[in-house]
């Protein structure tokens, strides 16, 4: 089950990078949601929407090289963004042939605490590890954040490169969330201006925002009819 879901979704996952002359620096993960070249990611990693590109990595799945020295990166632009709920819709700016499976975008409606979920992303992309990592978790809680965003907490450790990757409901093989980051309640509680300086505490709980926020952006873009 986990294996089938991982294989189904990993080729839809891409590295999000920023073009800096002839080099690219890694920002996070993004995933394909539409055959017209649209991807969803977390909005906070594309706050600066300039010179964004995505890199598909060849996924032959068998002991692939950890670091790719030279990559082909396609330019993307941010077409819709919702910083309140930490989602952004990107579009690949060049002609590219994409096929997507039928019906892979889910909803959080049928998700319950304890459900098995899978999270995909380039966990250590910042450290030049250009390989997708799959991790398995259960839904720890479903909460609303201080600004009323619906969040799914899950018990695997999202690393910095996981942000923007998909959270997949294993039982029915649908994407139900967009990974936002590690859950660090202490930082919220502190709430001071220099909260960035507090070293993150190693919780192994991460959080994703509900896919509905991403679907709303797709609807605004006219990609979904209902």
């Amino acid at each position: 089950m986990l294996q089938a879901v991982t294989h189904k979704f990993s080729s839809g996952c891409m590295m999000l990078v920023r073009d800096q002359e002839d080099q690219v620096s890694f920002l996070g993960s993004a995933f394909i949601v539409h055959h017209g070249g649209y991807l969803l990611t977390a909005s906070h990693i594309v706050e600066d929407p300039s010179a964004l590109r995505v890199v598909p990595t060849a996924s032959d799945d068998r002991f692939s090289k950890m670091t790719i020295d030279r990559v082909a990166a396609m330019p993307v632009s941010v077409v819709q963004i919702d910083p309140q709920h930490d989602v952004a819709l990107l579009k690949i700016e060049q002609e590219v042939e994409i096929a997507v499976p039928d019906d892979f975008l889910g909803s959080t409606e049928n998700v319950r605490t304890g459900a098995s979920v899978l999270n995909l992303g380039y966990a250590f992309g910042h450290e030049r590890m250009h390989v997708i990592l799959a991790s398995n978790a259960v839904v720890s809680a479903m909460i609303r954040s201080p600004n009323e965003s619906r969040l799914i907490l899950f018990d695997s450790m999202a690393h910095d490169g996981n942000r923007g990757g998909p959270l997949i409901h294993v039982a029915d093989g649908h994407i139900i969330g967009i990974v936002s980051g590690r859950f660090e309640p202490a930082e919220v509680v502190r709430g001071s201006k220099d909260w960035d300086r507090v070293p993150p505490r190693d919780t192994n709980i991460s959080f994703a925002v509900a896919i509905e926020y991403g679907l709303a952006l797709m609807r605004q873009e006219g990609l979904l009819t209902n």
Partner: protein
Amino acid sequence: MSNDSSPTPESPERPAWLHLDIHPYVFFISAGTILLFVVLTLLFEQHVDNLFGRLQGLISHYAGWFFVATMNIVLIFVISLLIGRFGDVRLGGEGARPEFSTAAWFAMLFSAGMGIGLLFFGVAEPMFHFVASPLAEPGTPDAARVAMDFTFLHWGLHPWSIYALVGLSLGFFAFNKGLPLSIRSVFYPILGEGIYGPIGNLIDIMATVATMFGVATSLGLGVQQVNAGLDHLFGTPQTTTVQLLLIAGITAIATWSVVKGLDAGIKRLSELNVIIAAILMFFVLLAGPTLFIFNALVENIGYYLQKFAQLSTWNETYENTEWQNGWTVFYWGWWIAWSPFVGMFIARVSYGRTIREFVKGVLFVPTLVTFVWVTTFGDSALHIEMFGDGGIAKAVQENIPVSLFVLLEKFPLSQVSAAIAIVVVVTFFVTSSDSGSLVIDIITSGGNTDPPKIQRIFWAVTEGVVAAALLLGGGLVALQTAAIATGLPFAIVLLGMCYSLRKGLHEYRSGQTFKLSMDDYDGPEFRTRATRRMPTFGRRQIWVRKPIDLKKERRS
């Protein structure tokens, strides 16, 4: 079912011709072939009879083992789909939902799949095997046990596995791959676009003609049986006029049903049919040897399971007899010849079911119902024959359709039960006839699941006319033999279907992923570099409390 609210995928638009939706080659060549066959049969009945009778004999003799092997291979294949990894593939794709309730679905499956034969052979077949058993001393308890087991074999898992295979293949290729709902579509993984060419047309024409002759000849032979029943009950004379009137009546109801469509016509009739049949069965269960029937049901199923491998592969190799050709091989040929029709109908009503649900529903539920039915009727007859005053075996050998009425006479209220039996017989005919017409309509319209009404009327009436013409001119048996003779080529087709469906499912599953082709990429390449991480947890607006609306707060 109206066109716009239909959840079933419609076939691609094609130019309307006189407000019809027809596939020109399939429609006209099928109609022509049917006409030609009927005329030839009427003119040279004896020759046609001889030709197909001998052909059927040769096929049974030389290819009997092949039929036996095919049936078992298909059964194993279908069970492998049930437990295998394709079980959760849904006909019509992930989002599809069943068009009919489960109860209505079962009713339609059962009415189309077994129908009339069960009514007559439920009594007759165990009797035949009891008095002439190939594997036991005739007339002994052992013969009774073996007789029930053979009947279970012939009406049990094997025929339903054939229907399940054909139905599943058609449903999968039509609803999940978007091909027309037509027999040709099943060969897409093998023939590719070739299914739209002459080979595809030929396959569809064969299926149409076989379905027409299957349904029309059973209708013709069936009304003779109904007439025999009426004669036995009410002394109605057995004349061609009565039989023609019966054909006209049944055809009229079937035409009404098929014009009304699946929802209003066929579904309701099937439900009604199953309810009346259930009433008849419960009547026999209560009026007959109730305890004996319950005992027998448990024992028969146990014996069937115990002897399953032995009997389903038995080829009378060492007995060196010809018993099997007249029974098992005949049945296998018959089920296979009917499979395009029943399979197509099952596919049409199974939109939105998963493969696992489909196999459970098509393989096990009807089999179990059949077992209960056959036990109720067959064991009641056996009880009378073994422990009562007998006489059923003799009646069966004289006239099969009358045997049901002879059995009912042994119980109280026989006038009422016989009248119910006649109604069941007629509704079973109607449900076979209307589903047959619908299947032909769909094929000859090139796969339109909701063909125009005028075409439905045309085929439903043609069915009655063919049956009537053959009844008047003779040749019903000849054409029925011809229909069964198509069992051999179809058996080969079935094996191809296993391969094709497996391949199709495999491609479907592996095709369900993201694909991205970078072959066209001609942009620059970039060097990757290590990047500073951005610790930003708290900065996200998610964690910023909404400003409290003080005015609103004060109001409340």
